[in-house]
């Protein structure tokens, strides 16, 4: 199994670190430049949500395989306040902060697989995968 990289997210600057590491791991995994940018953008969105809504958390990055396909697993998790209504949070334009509200639905559009789990008071976990084009 490939090593996993864990990036602690506690500040603005960690958002940059996470997306830059994500881009590097994606490049090593065989993603083209376009997909590297897509992955970096997705990481930027979920990392910012951690800082903004949960104060702290972490991003895990792991290269994965499915048969001969290479991919990247990105997990963003925190023990913050959680999201009471996930259906609402996944809607374009919905924001309890002052964002555009495109972070979560947009990130789903960027990635091939996207799951979000959240328990109010316990935290939020976003699990997403992107597969390299062969």
């Amino acid at each position, binding site marked *: 199994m490939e090593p996993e990289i864990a990036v602690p997210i506690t500040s*603005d600057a960690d*958002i940059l670190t996470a997306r*830059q590491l994500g881009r590097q791991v994606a490049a090593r995994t065989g993603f083209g430049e376009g997909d590297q*940018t897509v992955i970096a*953008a997705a990481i930027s969105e979920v990392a*910012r949500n951690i800082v903004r809504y949960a104060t702290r958390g972490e991003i895990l990055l792991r290269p994965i395989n499915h048969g001969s396909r290479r991919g990247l697993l990105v997990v963003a998790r925190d023990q913050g306040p959680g999201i009471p209504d996930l259906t609402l949070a996944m809607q374009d334009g919905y924001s309890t902060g002052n*964002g555009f509200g495109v*972070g979560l639905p947009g*990130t789903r559009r960027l990635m091939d697989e996207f799951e979000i789990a959240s328990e109010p008071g316990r935290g939020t976990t976003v699990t997403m995968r992107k597969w390299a084009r062969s």
Partner: protein
Amino acid sequence: MEVPILKLGAYLMASIQSALTDADLLHLRDALVDQVGRFRSRGVIVDVTALDVMDSFAARTLSDIAHMIRLRGADTVIVGIQPDVAMAMVQLGLRLEGVATALDLEEGLAFLARSTRERISGGA
């Protein structure tokens, strides 16, 4: 990582050199809105060629900059959005609606030259 702002005649040019934190972006916004009045600039170019990613916060801040500058009586053009960055932005759902864009610095300067001439001659 502070963004240098150059004064080019009647224009201001902010040339982003690397990835920016949210705080850097807000600092850039405040500096531009301030300096456009201080230097009585007619136009602002923000060159994002070196930006690794334009996420929702960066897009919102650039859009806010353009609208704030507009309220101060000057025009803004964003130049240098790279192909990969443009593709990821649109998939995210970020369109920079109502914000002028140009391919690069040269096109951005040409845009401002014409838009500010128009504005002076009472158009727009």
